[in-house]
């Protein structure tokens, strides 16, 4: 049985929000940090609470900590030592393996996210801007009351018009394929696979290997928690559109190139099901838009190139042990959209995403290290993920086609990493436990 009243809502639910703000915090002393946590933990929705009032609520709050942050709150050494190595090290130390080199290097990150002083994140999603500002003012009041709590930076999130459907700055419809957790009460859409064991995403439950071993201690801290990789990815929209124009003579051809990079048309329609022409109704239909596989339906990648983003991030029936490699994606877009006909304006805009999983090294890091950045993935030889791989202008993108394949050389980087961190997102009881560290009456 999933303890839905203890799991933070964001693991299993998506708030119907159009705006948001991430606030990155540092605790200069444990007391201040704990006072802040004591002041905010009641605002954090559990899955159950969020579901009960999703229609009338206007804001949703999540709280998570880096390993340094847990230490800064005063968690004892013995307990700190039980966390997985990659989480202890943090995302900055893992940069080379994640592909965060060159322009993506932590030296180029902003908002102090590469700093060891990054201790916590508050994720606020709000129905509208007025609500966001109200919450922000209230949060600021709390911070002002807690000595030694410092805001390192914050980031405003805003959905991109048209608001009827979720999409990124490049124009791709998003939030179509997501794993479903057993016992969550959700039904997977056709093609999304059978529900997965909770332990793949939530600590304290059996995973796909029927294990729940090596959990951080004490149990009250890890139970119902999870790990979260934060990625702030700037999208170079002008460069992306120039690229489409350079590689496609007509608008139709340009749309096809965009679709080949992703594996889906910008409408969301999967190339496996609509290989030649976009299909807007298919893209918008959750009963059909994820209902495909690769091995039988498109083994050579004539529809979906082997190196396209979605085929890398979820090779479906062409990958090994896929149930051990799935990820829950959350997040939002930031920055003002670039008007359709405007040239690149240098404004920072992109995606600020969370990849949620029980094991960063097995799920997120594998995706980043192997699927996104292994140049030999699927025998491709000299390619990386065209959307999130480390691109330095020397790599290629192959579009298999009969009778002869098309190879795009010198693929530019359409995105740059502007920040990132590994967070532990505790259950609600664990938040209380952390808030009461150092005091005698635990709980």
């Amino acid at each position, binding site marked *: 049985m999933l303890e839905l009243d203890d799991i933070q809502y964001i693991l299993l639910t998506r708030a119907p929000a159009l705006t948001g703000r991430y606030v990155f915090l540092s605790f200069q002393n444990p007391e201040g940090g704990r006072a802040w946590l004591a002041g905010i933990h009641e605002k954090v929705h559990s899955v159950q609470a969020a579901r009960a009032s999703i229609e009338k609520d206007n804001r949703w709050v999540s709280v998570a900590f880096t390993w340094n942050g847990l230490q800064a709150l005063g968690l004892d050494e013995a307990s700190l030592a039980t966390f997985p*190595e*990659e989480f202890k090290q943090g995302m900055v130390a*893992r940069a*080379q*393996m994640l592909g965060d080199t060159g322009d993506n290097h932590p030296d180029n990150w902003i908002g102090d996210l590469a700093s060891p002083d990054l201790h916590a994140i508050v994720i606020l999603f709000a129905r509208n801007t007025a609500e966001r500002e109200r919450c922000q003012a209230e949060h600021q009041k709390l911070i002002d009351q807690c000595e030694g709590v410092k805001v390192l930076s914050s980031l405003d999130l805003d959905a991109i018009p048209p608001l009827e459907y979720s999409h990124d700055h490049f124009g791709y419809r998003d939030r179509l394929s997501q794993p479903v957790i057993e016992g969550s009460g959700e039904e997977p859409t056709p093609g999304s696979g059978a529900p997965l064991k909770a332990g793949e995403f939530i600590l304290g439950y059996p995973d796909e*290997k029927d*294990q729940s*071993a*090596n959990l951080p201690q004490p149990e009250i801290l890890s139970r119902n928690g999870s790990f979260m990789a934060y990625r702030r990815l700037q999208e170079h929209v002008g460069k992306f559109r120039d690229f489409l124009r350079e590689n496609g003579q007509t608008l139709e051809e340009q749309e096809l190139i965009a679709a080949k990079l992703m594996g889906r048309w910008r409408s969301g329609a999967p190339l496996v099901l609509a290989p030649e022409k976009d299909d807007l109704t298919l893209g918008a239909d959750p009963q059909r838009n994820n209902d495909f596989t690769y091995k039988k339906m498109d083994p050579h990648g004539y529809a979906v190139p082997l190196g396209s983003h979605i085929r890398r991030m979820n090779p479906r029936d062409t990958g*090994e*042990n896929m149930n*051990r490699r799935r990820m829950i994606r959350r997040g939002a877009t930031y920055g003002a959209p670039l008007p359709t006909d405007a040239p690149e304006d240098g404004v920072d805009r992109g995606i600020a995403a969370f990849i949620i999983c029980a094991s960063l*090294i*097995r799920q997120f*890091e*594998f995706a980043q*290290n*192997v699927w996104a950045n*292994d140049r*030999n993935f699927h*025998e491709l030889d000299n390619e990386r993920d065209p959307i999130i791989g480390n691109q330095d202008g020397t790599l290629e993108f192959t579009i298999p086609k009969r009778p002869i394949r098309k190879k795009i050389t010198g693929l530019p980087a359409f995105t740059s990493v502007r920040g990132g961190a590994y967070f532990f997102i505790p259950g609600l009881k664990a938040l209380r436990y952390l808030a009461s560290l150092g005091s005698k009456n635990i709980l």
Partner: protein
Amino acid sequence: MPKKIKQNDWTKPAAMAIPKEGYFELEQGRYGPVFPKTPACYGFTIIAKVKPGKVDTVRAYSKTIEDAVAGDPHCLAVLKLHYLRWVLFDIGKETYFMYQGIFDTDFDKYTEDAVELFSITGITTVFVNLEGFPEDWKTNTPAFVKFVREHQRPSFLEYGEYPFVSADEIKKALKLKAAFSAMLDQMQ
């Protein structure tokens, strides 16, 4: 990697001398330094002492693998292997097991898949008979990897007569050859 060795020229046999550490530049993978691709592709040589009295058990496991592969010829596909060689040898009164593999992926990248696979095919049990193998390997992939890394002896020379060619490429070429000769036959 030495600049002079080109990765894409299979017509030119190539040899590579490898530094003592097993790599040219320290590049971190998920579980530790990444060992380079050489003219003989990726690979490892794991050498470990066999637990007392377990030599016959180790030897018998060759049959387990033989049967597993006969039953499902593609059961080891995830390892992207060219070749495996298992050797038992003695030093004094002790028997050692050498597990040499040549394959096309950086082993570390796919370790979890390998560990998973081992539990299915029974290869694990070979490791279980080796000294120092972690008892909790099934639930502790990092410990499994640590054992492999600690017992890995990096090559200091590797040679390829057709360097850097992957098993998949070889299979593709053979398939093409077969198709081509069938076509030529039909044109006679």
